[in-house]
């Protein structure tokens, strides 16, 4: 009978049979073989039990699937222990069920400890603001991603990026436990801070000479001084003055971006009349619209109440940015329409131009930092592409939203919604 089997298996079977007959007790062994080279291996388990004096029972089972599952499990465990990210499981009661090696090292523990909870491994402020919230959100939405601070056993705060995933024993059932993957982003944070610090210092250092250049140029462009100068010199001065102005704006924008980046851009809210703010912005820009013979209209119900609790200076910055863009990209003689209206619980401000428009493919990214529409049709040529990014952040800090609709060569419409309260 054994002749049918591969030599090695038949040898091992004979040996086991002898052993079973001699010792009169069950023996078993596992054996794997491949039908062809490079094919999936089969796993067999052979179990030999004595029945009576001269009979034995041989059971051979295919255990390939069990073996494969085992192997997968071992590999996963291997990965879990080898990865440099923290991986941990946390139960519904927020008790930590398991932490991998990298996690133990990150948190300053030498071995698995039963007493860890989510509250103990997170920095207090992080835990208060997102600890529970992240679990609830993950259970509802399928995952949660964000940043937080973990707490080293020695008290050091560790900035991490976090992913929280809920696990259920059956689909649609209650959450069994959560897995949490955390990556230490100390180094990234440090580089980020150094970058922001550099921008801040550089901007301040740039502002001093800018103040002088702008100031002394303004002396030369005083009306009485200008009159005594030849036409060409006046033109040169005007150009120099305009460019110093743009340089000043660029520096301001860089500072704003570095503040947005570090969450330091804060609003100084007060009672602000949006109709008045928009009127003021329009008045400020009439010299530009006059230059291009643009027809600027501002439409709102004069008897309406347009007052809200906003940062007037920051909103003016947003309106000015959007209007300057609209003016810059409108051909001579076209119309520019501003509308202030009330929609549901929001103020809605629409700024519509008949300019070159924005290609559909670029509409979604124009509010991104440093992103500008590209190519010859570029709506946002000139400037560093920071204005809209800042505008979006300021509007969102107010709890509002900003949207854009555009048709190439027909024009664009920017719509800002600001909550009434």
């Amino acid at each position, binding site marked *: 009978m054994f002749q049918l089997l591969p030599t090695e298996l038949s040898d091992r079977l004979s040996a086991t049979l002898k052993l079973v007959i001699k010792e009169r007790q069950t023996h078993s062994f596992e054996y794997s073989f491949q039908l062809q080279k490079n094919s999936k291996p089969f796993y067999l388990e052979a179990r030999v039990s004595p029945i009576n004096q001269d009979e034995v029972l041989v059971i051979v089972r295919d255990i390939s699937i069990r073996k494969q599952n085992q192997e997968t499990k071992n590999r996963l465990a291997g990965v879990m222990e080898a990865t440099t990210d923290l991986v941990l499981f946390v139960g519904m009661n927020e008790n930590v069920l398991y932490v991998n090696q990298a996690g133990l090292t990150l948190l300053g523990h030498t071995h698995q400890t039963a007493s860890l909870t989510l509250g103990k491994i997170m920095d207090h402020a992080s835990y208060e603001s997102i600890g529970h919230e992240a679990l609830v959100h993950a259970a509802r939405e399928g995952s949660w991603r964000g940043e937080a601070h973990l707490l080293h056993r020695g008290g050091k705060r560790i900035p991490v990026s976090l992913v929280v995933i809920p696990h259920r024993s059956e689909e649609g059932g209650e959450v069994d436990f959560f897995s949490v993957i955390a990556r230490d982003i100390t180094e990234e944070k440090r580089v980020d801070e150094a970058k922001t610090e550099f921008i*801040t210092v550089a901007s301040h250092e740039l502002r*001093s000479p800018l103040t*002088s250049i702008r*100031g*002394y140029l*303004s002396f030369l462009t005083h009306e009485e001084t200008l009159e005594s100068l030849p036409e060409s010199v006046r033109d040169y001065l005007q150009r120099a003055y305009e460019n110093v102005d743009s340089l000043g704006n660029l520096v301001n924008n860089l500072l704003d971006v570095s503040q947005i980046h570090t969450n330091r851009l804060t609003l100084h809210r007060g009672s602000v009349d949006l109709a008045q703010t928009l009127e003021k912005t329009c008045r400020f820009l009439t010299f530009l619209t006059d230059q291009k013979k643009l027809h600027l209209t501002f439409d709102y119900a004069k008897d309406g109440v347009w007052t809200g609790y906003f940062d007037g200076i920051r909103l003016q910055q947003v309106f000015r940015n959007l209007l300057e863009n609209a003016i810059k990209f409108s051909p001579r003689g076209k119309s520019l329409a501003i509308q202030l209206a009330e929609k549901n619980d929001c103020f809605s401000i629409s700024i519509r131009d008949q300019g070159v428009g924005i290609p559909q493919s670029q509409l979604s990214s124009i509010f991104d930092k440093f992103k500008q529409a590209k190519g010859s049709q570029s709506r946002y040529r000139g400037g560093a592409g920071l204005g809209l990014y800042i505008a979006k952040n300021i509007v969102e800090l107010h709890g509002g939203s900003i949207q854009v609709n555009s048709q190439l060569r027909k024009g664009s419409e920017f719509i800002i919604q600001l909550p009434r309260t």
Partner: protein
Amino acid sequence: MKTAFNTIRVLIAEDDPNICKLYSLEFMRHGFVVYTANDGRQAIQKFKNKEPDIVLLDIMMPHADGYQVLREIRKELNRYVPVMMLTNLDVTEFTDREAIDFVDAYLVKSNYTPSEVVERAIEVLRLNKLLPVEVC
């Protein structure tokens, strides 16, 4: 018109000589009496000796910074002297956030021309009843 300002004393505390001269020229053009200080210590001294009606105060200065000067100025209890903080720091960069409650105006220098600064100073003087409203 300009003679209306010739009784108003302005103290400009600014360590950058270019900017200091810039503002001095513009205030003098409008007829103000101008005193300058190139550092914080000098600013405190001139504030006491010259009794200015308004102070233009830079923040980052040698010897004593703008905050320290401001504290000294606010120790004067017999009269209120308006202070305009003129700096190239953003409000969010303020290391001494409370100081902003004790100043009458806060301007980022690079965003204003000297004549706009003077306009603002006149506005502050009016609000503090140091100039009659109708004078312009």
